[in-house]
């Protein structure tokens, strides 16, 4: 039961529970060089959600490999590194550096972060650019490449088909929706960055719809993300066709969220008589064929 990019590099949550219960861990976006990120405020609360404009603050791939990943080894779970950058070469270079790390199980290509000015987002909204990015990264990467798509597009299926065609091993859906909150006292956008990414329960219906739609078009596995807070939310994403899920914002509300959600999922399966959780995958589709990972 993979956790998401809202986990930093894991060590903080490890103070709350043993991370080995997780299906995998997706670490925070990593760029070639260290990034300072955006000015503050970076966070705003919204109805059933939040906006963030972190701006990819991270210590750079070198330090991630040296100091952040090795402590995660002891949990014996796959480590997925979320990769971001501006130009295509940035991505490729990060991926090449990650090839040298024994700790990396897969790459999650973040072509969908709405909070970086130059680049990033174009790759996430243009099918052809996304495809060429995926091809370049696939050529460079030793490990499987998961492509994380942006929901801020007219046709998510078109994007998904483009990256599948280009060789993506899996797709993560969804990153945040672009939103804004205005501080009426200051008469200015609340976030220093102006706009930010909307996450949390508010976006769950959009995420479920996109997972349902994309899994009806592509054959590669889809990882569902967006507003997952309970075990039943996981069931909803599985029924929509997701083969795995990630939990973001819920970790902020409750540091034990991932652990609790896994327990709730097991409890649900016991109660509903679900012996094999894979039978849930895509079962809400008209002609559920029961696809398996």
């Amino acid at each position, binding site marked *: 039961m993979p956790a998401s990019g*809202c*986990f*930093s590099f894991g060590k*903080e*949550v490890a*103070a*709350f529970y043993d991370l080995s219960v997780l299906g995998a861990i997706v670490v*925070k976006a990593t760029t070639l060089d260290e990034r*300072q*990120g955006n*000015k*503050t*405020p*970076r*966070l*705003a*609360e*919204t*109805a*059933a*959600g*939040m906006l*963030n404009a*972190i701006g990819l*603050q991270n210590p750079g791939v070198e330090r991630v490999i040296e100091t952040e990943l090795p402590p995660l080894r002891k949990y014996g779970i796959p480590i997925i590194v979320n990769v971001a950058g501006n130009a295509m070469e940035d991505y490729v270079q990060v991926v090449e550096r990650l090839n040298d790390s024994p700790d990396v199980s897969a790459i999650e290509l973040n072509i969908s972060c709405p909070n970086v000015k130059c680049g990033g987002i174009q790759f996430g909204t243009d099918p052809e650019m996304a495809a060429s990015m995926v091809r370049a990264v696939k050529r460079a990467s030793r490990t499987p490449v998961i492509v994380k798509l942006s929901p801020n597009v007219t046709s998510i299926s078109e994007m998904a088909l483009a990256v599948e065609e280009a060789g993506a091993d899996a797709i993560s859906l969804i990153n945040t929706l672009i939103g804004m909150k205005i501080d009426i006292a200051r008469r200015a956008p609340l976030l220093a960055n102006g706009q930010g990414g909307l996450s*949390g*329960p*508010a976006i769950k219906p959009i995420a479920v719809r996109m997972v349902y739609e994309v899994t009806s078009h592509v054959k590669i596995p889809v990882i569902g993300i967006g507003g997952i*807070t309970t075990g039943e939310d996981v069931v909803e994403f599985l029924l929509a066709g997701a083969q795995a899920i990630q939990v973001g*914002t819920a*970790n*902020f*509300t*409750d*540091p*034990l969220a991932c652990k609790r959600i896994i327990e709730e999922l097991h409890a649900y399966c016991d109660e509903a008589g679900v012996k094999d959780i894979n039978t849930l995958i895509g079962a809400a589709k008209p002609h559920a064929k029961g696809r398996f990972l």
Partner: protein
Amino acid sequence: MAVQRVLEQRVIGPELYALTFSAPLKLSEGGYEPGQFLHLRVTDSFDFVLRRPLSLCQVHVERNALTVMYRAQGAGTRRLARLRAGDAIDVLGPLGKGFPLHAGDRRALLIGGGIGVPPLVELARHLHAQGSEVVSVIGFQTADQIILREELKAYGQVHLVTDDGTEGVRGRVTDVLTPEQCEGVTRYYACGPTPMLRAVQTVLRERDIPGYLSLEERMGCGIGICVGCVHKVRREGRESYVKTCVEGPVFPAEEVVFS
């Protein structure tokens, strides 16, 4: 972290409340520092996806309880103000790094502005206990906002300042930080709105007094995973954003960069 019980909610001024609840940890065993914060879940509703950070104000070891004091300013704190004795409250913490104590300090200057005063009370108690002389300078907008004056008086001298002069000295806390007043001060501790902290930092840097500032940034997780709560610090000549929830909220004053 755990669900705690509200023991008491008291109105202490206009929109000002003191909330006391059972402690998430055994207080007799220590494990907390003055200046740390508690991260409170407002309700179990999705209306409040983010917790609210409030400073640890008073510690009641005998009752194993904690008090926070806060202003009901926005939707979340207004909702907290509806809590009554017996209600459940989800409390994370105490979190972060509090005010470090220095055993040899002769005279400590505590500076608080408005709703930044609460964490100073527990700090004053600790300083007093270790034998440091405590002088507090606390500022409020107007007389009816004054909180914790008597509590601080229990540990030393208190200078009161109000913006409008309705009580105490009229002006800002920095108006009281004259060279005479700072005479013999070995260290200062400040908590309050950012403009106050910035002014205090400037004035006391001139007086060559080392100190600590407790910063207020918008927080997400409170435990270091969202990278939302950063503030700029300068260390070894290099500026970078650090997480105030785990490396702060208290920082050595000389590190803190206000932009």
